[in-house]
């Protein structure tokens, strides 16, 4: 990710890249269509969304209680639990566990939370080899890039680009653009790595407090490999991932897979409740869970924004976002792109740094309409947008509230407000403007770069209405 460039120039780059745009357009159209095929019946979709939303509401409003219960159940199941307040703390905990086990080779299953803490970069710096094993993540790692979508990480790359990256790294395999062949080559390469790995790292889709069960949703089987073949398994979970009981799982799983990729269900739903038991023959010998806060408890305290935490990371809001579809994931410069990204990231990393992200929204409302857990994303984005330029209350929860305020802009709006609040003044101004319409500038900065400048009309709307004989205009 190119944080060094400004958001504006990243957006400019993305909009100028036709290949990228066509990759995203076709991928998003595909995902949108697949999802809608699975939700033909409006009534059952409504009731499923209500259930899923209510389950997540319950999780978030009972978070401390459920986390304590989860920890207790996990410990009972012989899984060690660690709490990390920050990304740095989480990385250090993970490194310490690996170091104590003398683990040098690590395989990882797809996990956005480990992207969030930049675990790969951290372990690289400690000379621990960490290999992404989800096919898309593997290809992105080979290309030394970052995922551009939270569910389909290599969505920005065309088959040709992937073939090139693959053959550059593995010259022993013949060059091919055949997806089946590339997949089989990756299988071959990664199988040895699974077998030789000293540790496996995964994320968590749902953590069940009642039974201490970690659930992973996937299609490829690499998640199962990472959590089964190495002697050590470390799972990293955001604290919001907890759900109360096993009975919460069916609606969540159902709506997650349908919303994410339009699948009835994924190939694997993997429920892990303990490391290898004494009589068992495989599975990790020891297991650890790292519960990560990294700004989540602040979001939890900020009741107006708390719903951000309900997210189950299906990516549906991203797939339906017109801004994301035009820009792709990298232009955002963040781990989570799209509507959920511009809602979550400024709260986590502060408005000074990421406040301008909130402008990447047209307020079209598509995201809220498809969100499986009914997060009112446009409302939250709009709220954050106003916090970027003014606000007081949220200062205690979000860094940089009001920091994007520009004196000239705010002065202009003050005047606007004054004129619009005073009818006599308003009449005078509109009369003056219609008289002086010939003074309208031909160019207004960036605005006129893509738009024709309109002159004010000869008569105001009020006058036109009067002429037309409309009473009480």
């Amino acid at each position, binding site marked *: 990710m190119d944080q060094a460039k400004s958001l504006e120039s990243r957006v400019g780059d993305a909009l100028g890249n036709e290949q990228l745009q066509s990759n995203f357009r*076709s991928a998003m159209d595909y995902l949108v269509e697949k999802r809608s095929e699975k939700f033909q019946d409006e009534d059952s979709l409504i009731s499923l969304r209500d259930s899923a939303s209510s389950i997540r509401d319950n999780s978030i409003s009972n978070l401390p209680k459920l986390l304590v219960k989860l920890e207790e159940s996990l410990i009972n199941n012989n899984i060690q639990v660690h709490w990390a307040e920050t990304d740095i703390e989480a990385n250090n905990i993970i490194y310490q566990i690996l170091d104590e086990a003398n683990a040098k080779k690590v395989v990882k299953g797809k996990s956005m939370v480990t992207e969030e803490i930049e675990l790969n970069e951290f372990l690289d710096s400690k000379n621990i080899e960490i290999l992404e094993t989800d096919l898309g993540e593997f290809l992105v790692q080979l290309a030394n890039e970052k995922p551009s979508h939270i569910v389909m990480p290599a969505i920005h790359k065309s088959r040709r680009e992937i073939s090139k990256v693959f053959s550059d790294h593995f010259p022993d395999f013949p060059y091919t653009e055949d997806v089946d062949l590339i997949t089989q080559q990756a299988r071959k390469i990664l199988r040895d790595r699974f077998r030789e790995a000293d540790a496996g790292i995964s994320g968590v889709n749902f953590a069940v407090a009642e039974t201490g069960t970690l659930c992973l949703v996937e*299609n490829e089987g690499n998640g199962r490999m990472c959590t089964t073949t190495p002697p050590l398994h470390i799972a990293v979970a955001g604290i919001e991932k907890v759900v109360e009981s*096993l009975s919460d799982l069916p609606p969540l799983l159902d709506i997650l897979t349908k919303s994410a990729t339009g699948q009835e269900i994924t190939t694997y739903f993997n*429920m892990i409740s303990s490391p290898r038991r004494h009589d068992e023959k495989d599975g990790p010998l020891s297991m650890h869970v790292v519960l990560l806060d990294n700004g989540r408890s602040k979001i939890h305290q900020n009741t107006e924004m708390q719903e951000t935490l309900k997210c189950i990371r299906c990516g549906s809001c991203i797939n339906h976002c017109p801004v994301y579809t035009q820009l792709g994931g990298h232009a955002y410069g963040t781990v989570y792109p799209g509507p959920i990204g511009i809602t979550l990231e400024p709260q986590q990393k502060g408005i000074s740094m990421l406040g301008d992200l909130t402008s990447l929204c047209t307020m079209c409302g598509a995201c809220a309409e498809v969100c499986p857990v009914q997060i009112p994303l446009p409302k939250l984005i709009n709220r954050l947008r106003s916090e970027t330029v003014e606000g007081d209350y949220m200062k205690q929860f979000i860094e940089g509230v009001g920091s994007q305020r520009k004196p000239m802009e705010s002065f202009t709006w003050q005047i606007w407000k004054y004129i619009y609040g005073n009818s006599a003044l308003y009449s005078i101004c509109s009369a003056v403007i219609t008289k002086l319409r010939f003074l309208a500038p031909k160019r207004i900065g960036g605005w006129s770069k893509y738009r024709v400048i309109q002159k004010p009309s000869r008569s105001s709307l009020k006058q036109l209405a009067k002429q037309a004989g409309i009473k009480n205009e």
Partner: protein
Amino acid sequence: MSKSKHIILEKLKSKIHHSELEKEISLATLNGWTKKDMTQILSDKLKLSKAEVFVMPNKELASWLNEELPKRKVKNILSGTSLAKEISQKLSSTIELVEYDNSYESFSKQLFNEIEASITRTVGAIADSGSIVLKPSADEPRLMSLVPNTHIALVEQSSIFENFGQIMSDQSWSLNMPSNALLISGPSKTADIEQVLAYGVHGPKELIVLILTP
């Protein structure tokens, strides 16, 4: 209590002022499907996910294996010890039956490099999502359904349920979770390259489900 745990929990507790929300889950209603309906729905859905499905009387299992495995050029098959006891006598001598009776560490090389297929039991199946349900055990370890190219799974027709919630509550899962439980709905697959579906990426390339009738 660790320092971070304390800090995180304190922050979270500070905002528990609203009355606790009651969960309103409308559980998927049961359709009252018969076993025959469910067998049909399960096989249709599994086939859509590119699994193969065969329905047969329990006693024909061995002869099916004797006929099908050579056709598929499968020379060896991995089995749990208890199932091996049941079928080894009836299996033709051209098929080598391998038991997963050692720890993974001593078996991994053979498992990854030599074993072609595996056969496991299931604890049931879910009709509405087209899934088979496994609870790997000491007898039938976790990797049996993951590493070999072909996975053959046996589903007793009597253990097909309508939905995921039903199998969990009927079998009282919450009282006794195994170290690992799995829903499997087809062979391993990916669509990470240009959304083109490719099968057999990390797990089995073939999933064969045998639904056994009494």
